[in-house]
């Protein structure tokens, strides 16, 4: 296959609206279709507390402005590109040490034990770099995942605001991926 033309649209952002998730797992099934994932999904849908609710949440790489996973990688296997995408571990460099797994405040990277390799979402770079949308956001039937411009999102969700500032105690993390919060929200305090 020819090298994809790099046509990444920097105006496009990724939005997650947990309230709309209907636990259908279409995102997981579609993510596994990505050419670079080897049929593994890099997004995960989890029940919050199935005994009392059918609410699920999606866990996807937040593509941090200053990614802890890359910062702690002893092998320089994880890189962030000029588009703000934090890429999955470079297979020729990753030593499977799991530092990134432990460092990520969102609990995203997973070590694939069989491959001795860290894998995580790279924002469907095979698609986004040629002007398409990531597979998970394309198929999401409920709009819990959306890939588009901030302006489009503002029109679609007049009662919500996108938030990409997270407080983990004293640590503040800014991300490329937004979560939808009630109107007026500026940040999300995790604990």
């Amino acid at each position, binding site marked *: 296959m020819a090298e994809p033309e790099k046509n990444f649209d920097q105006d496009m952002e990724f939005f997650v609206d947990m309230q709309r998730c*209907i636990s259908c797992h279409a995102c997981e*099934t*579609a993510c596994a279709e990505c050419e670079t994932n080897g049929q593994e999904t890099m997004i995960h849908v989890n029940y919050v507390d199935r005994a009392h609710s*059918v609410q699920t949440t999606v866990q996807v790489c937040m593509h941090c402005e200053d990614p802890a996973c890359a910062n702690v990688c002893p092998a320089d296997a994880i890189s962030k590109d000029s588009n703000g995408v934090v890429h999955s571990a470079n297979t020729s460099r990753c030593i499977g040490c799991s530092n990134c797994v432990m460092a990520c405040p969102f609990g995203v990277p997973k070590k694939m034990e069989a491959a001795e390799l860290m894998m995580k979402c790279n924002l469907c770079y095979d698609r986004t770099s040629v002007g398409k949308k990531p597979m998970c956001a394309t198929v999401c039937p409920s709009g819990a995942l959306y890939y588009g411009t901030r302006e489009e999102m503002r029109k679609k969700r007049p009662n919500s605001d996108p938030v990409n500032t997270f407080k983990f105690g004293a640590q503040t993390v800014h991300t490329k991926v937004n979560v939808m919060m009630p109107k007026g929200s500026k940040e999300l305090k995790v604990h």
Partner: protein
Amino acid sequence: MAKLPISVDKIIENYGPHKAYAPKQGFHGHADPDKLVKTHCCFCGMQCGLQLKVKDNAVVGFEPWMEFPFNEGRMCPKGVARYLQNNHADRLLSPLERVESEGFKAVDWETAMSRTVTEIKRIQSTYGNDAFAMLSGVSLTNELSYMVGKFARVALKTANLDYNGRLCMVSAGAGNKKAFGLDRISNSWVDLKHAEVIMICGSNVSETFPTLIHYIWEARDNGAKLIVVDPRVTPVARTADLHLPVRPGTDSALYGAMLQQLVENDWLDHDFINQHTSGFDATIAAVKDYSLEWAEKVTGIPAESIKQAAAMWGQAKTSFMMHARGIEHHSKGVDNVLGCINLVLATGRIGKPYCGYGTITGQGNGQGGREHGHKCDQLPGNRDITNPEHRKYIADVWGIDEKDMPGKGLTAYEILEAIHRGEIKGLISICFNPVVSLPNNNMVREALEKLEYYVAIDFFLNETARHANVVLSGALHEEEEGTVTSAEGRVIKINAAVTPPGDARTDASILKELAARLGAGDKFAFKNSEAIFNELRVASKGGTADYYGITYERIVKNYGVFWPCPSLDHPGTPRLWEDRKFATPDGKAHFNPAPYRDPGEPTDKEYPVVLTTGRVVSQYLSGTQTRRIGKLLDQYPEPLLEIHPSLAQQFGIQDRDLVKVVTRRGEAEFPAQVVTTIRSDTVFIPYHWGGSKSANQLTIGNLDPISKIPEFKVCACKLIPLGRKAPPVSESDAYQSV
């Protein structure tokens, strides 16, 4: 015929279901396919547009089809993973013949066809034409539905033809015909987005029609209020402004009480009622005593919630009412549907922008499949098989004498009962798996064992086809061209992506050859699917389901055409009744009294718990296709018994405990899932599995007197905890697909 030729385990070993995680030939060509074929999903009534990746005459993946207007690329997990059924290891590649004690052996088409036709002739000459029945399904295209109806009446010459829509939305169809004279949702889904209030009755939309959820969420962005009637807190009920957790089997009491509230508060559209409806007075007289307190007692829904629902519904300016199997699968399914329609008519919110009403069809061609004549009481164009004028018109199209056309036959469940009684001796089925999908399926299995000859047209050896004398290897969805009609009434094009593998054939070619061997070849000389569609168009002309103006070319150009479309210059009809001319003889919409009555099998001391059934998002109907796709089975590996903690406590049941569920029809064991998201008097089991995990061993064959739909959604059961935990999922029979 006798029991299975060899053990179930052996059959499964040979023919599955086995789980596929990758295309048979690997992912070769996944990234660089030969072509992308625009088509639609093979599963539910949403019929999402998608593209199949094809390499070397095999489907190797999917790509979203962003331009198709209904779903704009959005998909559910079934649609994404459907490509894994193509070239599946279980795929039947040639006809099979039953060999006692040995199983099935591959035979050539000549052998399979000649034996089948010999047996049909033998049975019909011995017992009469109606002793050979046919069962069909609405995963078939419109062309095949039409062809099956014609085949049964013209080639097989039997009255006993029915279809698996009988298990789906026939209650809605019967209600629609009584109220409107026509059986279709009133509007395209687009009107949903701007409705002020949306009421969903008995539909787990989020799991059964996930791509429709986007329209509901958009409506809520626009300020819509959402009312959901469901005994469970489903993902769509979780977010509702008002969730009404109805006791299964009592829906019509709720709608009656709401109607009474509309009258009491004068939330009525008097002009619409006076000018465009009939039957209002008799209908409100039937509910005059339906107080909120009475309704609370019957339905288990707090009176205050019913009052609030009536106020939300009554005071809105625009609204969309929709329902599905939750209210239709009842021995009074038609009454439940009419109860909903009465609320729509009382407020006059139909045939207007942002107002709508309709059922959400569960099967892929649930809408189209109920229009073209493979129902026991119906001819193409939704014509009535007992109406002399209708019979004459279709007989002329078919080139036969009207006197030679069989009359009304038995419905699906009644056909199995007649087989069980020994009155029907032979059966041909296509695209129907009654051993899993019919209620009281132990009776169904016994019935199949009594047949003298059974021939199944199928692409996998499903639980029913295992009983066949001969299996004719038919085609998958992606192997045959045609059209289907989505739940919103949009006629769309299915494009063949690949040809059938091995010696498998298209269903159309199989029916065509059988017809020829039965002496009706000249009536089935169709060159291709478009030729069938063109005859269907003529056969539908002038009927209520008029497709005459729809052509393949127009469908492709316009991303589908909404019926009715009576002429080539007609734009199609996304929104019905804008002219206020209903399809009833008097041109008015009809109110129909829908008084409450109890379900067929109320709970008692011996069977104190209500059992209800339904679907999960990763499986489709009897699971013939989806239980063969590894990713989908992994997502929800085995049927679970959902039970409320308070009911679980009464029986000493904890999460993952193995529980025996017993009804008057059978018993089966399921792991418990203890959750507060279900009524405390009701348990729920999904019905997609066969064998020992089949929920339909337990359900009841009470039929609605009008629609003859079975009462899948409510029966009485008792629970017996077995004192041990369920085995890990990886060891579960259901996960192994037995």
